[in-house]
């Protein structure tokens, strides 16, 4: 167990370091923040002073080392725009994003899982076909298209709901539905195929043969097994709670982390962008870890630490 945790922990740190490094170099190589943040007419001395004060005049590797050391000291830098600590700025936005992503997550589960199970149990029925069509559509229609369609329909034509902003809960409805629909489609598809796969297994027939009534076969024998692949995709979605709403926040001008990321990239506000990406990487790693633990809880064959195996 300890060995398992140590390996997992090390791998998590490496993943995060990789993301952070990647972000660091891409951002620096893709444009000079000084030119973007200062006005184009700024005198060259001002630009030089700006570079000096942010350390941008140093060699890249030195900047990188300083950045890394600072992270370990818990210092994620300051926004080049308004000088506030980047972490504070990002944390201010997290609640707004969670206001969209948490209800959307609930929506995905509440629609996706039952729809997938039902479709599998009624294979080739009307409901099954409907689920397949919807999930293909939900998969292939980009969320900004869906968002815009919903805005046209409910905000512009029917005038029931606001088209953007974040003044009250009504503003959250369209973005939540946009986010939730696509996710529900994906979950439904996964759940359906997991369930179909499990229903074809010999132990399902054997359970029936020993006299277990069909509803119990579904609930007590098939579902726990079908949960294994479904949990993977759900766990992955937990990882996107923080940054999974970039597009939707932009479409609906929702003041969340995703929008901050877009604006930050456009402005080359390095510290802010890096801070968001670090947060995202940490969420991903945490959700992967949770998925692994859930796996072990659901499926005794995958209790990696129990068998002393060193991961997959």
């Amino acid at each position, binding site marked *: 167990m300890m060995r398992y945790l140590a390996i997992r922990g090390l791998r998590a740190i490496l993943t995060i370091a990789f993301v952070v490094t990647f972000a660091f170099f891409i951002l620096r190589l893709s444009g000079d923040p000084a030119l973007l943040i200062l006005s184009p007419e700024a005198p060259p001395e001002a630009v030089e002073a700006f570079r000096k004060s942010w350390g941008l005049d140093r060699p890249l590797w030195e900047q990188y080392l300083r950045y890394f050391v600072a992270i370990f000291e818990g210092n994620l830098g300051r926004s080049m725009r308004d000088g506030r600590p980047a972490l504070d700025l990002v944390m201010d936005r997290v609640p707004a994003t969670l206001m969209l992503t948490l209800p959307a997550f609930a929506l995905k589960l509440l629609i996706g899982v039952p729809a997938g199970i039902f479709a599998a149990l009624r294979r080739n029925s009307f409901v099954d076909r409907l689920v397949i069509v919807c999930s293909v559509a939900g998969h292939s229609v980009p969320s900004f298209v869906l968002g815009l369609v919903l805005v046209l329909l409910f905000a512009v034509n029917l005038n029931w709901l606001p088209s953007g902003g974040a003044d009250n809960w009504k503003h959250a409805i369209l973005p939540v539905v946009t986010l939730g629909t696509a996710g529900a489609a994906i979950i439904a598809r996964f759940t359906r195929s997991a369930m179909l796969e499990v229903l074809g*297994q*010999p*132990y399902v*027939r*054997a*359970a*029936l*043969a*020993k*006299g*277990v*009534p*069909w509803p119990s076969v579904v609930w007590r*024998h098939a579902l*726990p*097994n079908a949960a294994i692949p479904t949990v993977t995709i759900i766990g992955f979605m937990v990882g996107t709670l923080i940054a999974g709403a970039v597009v939707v926040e932009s479409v609906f001008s929702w003041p969340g982390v995703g929008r901050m990321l877009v604006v930050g990239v456009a402005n080359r506000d390095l510290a802010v962008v890096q801070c968001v990406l670090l947060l995202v990487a940490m969420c991903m790693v945490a959700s992967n870890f949770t998925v692994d633990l859930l796996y072990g809880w*659901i*499926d*005794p*064959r995958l209790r990696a630490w129990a068998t002393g195996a060193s991961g997959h």
Partner: protein
Amino acid sequence: MVALPDVEPATDRRLVDIRGLTVDFDMGARVSRVLHGIDLSIDKGEVVGLVGESGCGKSVTWLAVLGLLGPRAHVGGIATLGGEPLLGIGDERLSRVRGGRIAMIFQDPTACLNPVKRIGAQVCEALHLHRGIVGERARAEARRLLDRVGIAAAAQRMNEYPHQMSGGMNQRVMIATALAGEPDLLVADEPTTALDATIQAQILDLLREVRRDTGMAMVLISHDLGVVAENCDRVAVMYCGRVVEQAPAERLFEKPSHPYTRGLLAALPDLAGPTRRLESIPGNVPEPWNLPTGCAFAPRCGACRDFCTGTVPPYRAVAAGHLVACARAGFLHHAPSAQSSAVAR
């Protein structure tokens, strides 16, 4: 009571009666008939062997009787258990028969146990369903059953998962689960095919023992005629969805009448004599949707005559309890190959 076509007189020893059982699979583009009217009966306490090449319908027969074939299968004909009909009786009554009156075990025991449930829980589930025992009493009974089927340290094994056990152990668990329902009939569908030779023998010994203790009847589906010869009172030979010959085991091995049965026996390794090349039956089993007219075995049959390809030969008795579906049965000499008499005890 339903009037049964009188192939054999029904007696009060009769446990299961299958008459004219047909199964069609709806394959979307076509419907393929895989059982063409099976007649088979099992008496109380009797052991019947069911043999035939792969794909001839041995498993489907019993899956159909227990309603386990799923919605794409259309089942016709009659099957009764103790005089009560079995086909189309509805899920609720059927699930009391399954495991409670007729239990079934399968070829790949590890795949037949739920991978995420503990062994003990899977045995207890059957006890709960068929005998209404729950909690500590169920666990005690499950422990006794696991002990009975020869699982050492049963109390600890109960907390393990199927993947932690060997195939042979898992087949013992399946047998314990089957015994939990105290059935009248155990259908063992190639129970040892997936296991290695020494384990095979142990499992067959175990089945013999539990049968002796409980007196339940058994259907032993097997490719292995040697296994059938050693364990069965009566043998039915299937080919392409039909029973082509059935007889008391000794008689079948001494005087096989159907050329197909003779072919199977000729393909059997000679246990007593010197090893020699196996004569397997030439040709392949035709697909269910591609059956020849007349006798399905005709194209592979050395004794085939013109009239064999015209109509399906009727099932008729050549001796007491010895039924054959071959137009030429009785006209062929009984020339059992040397090794067949070695197999029959």
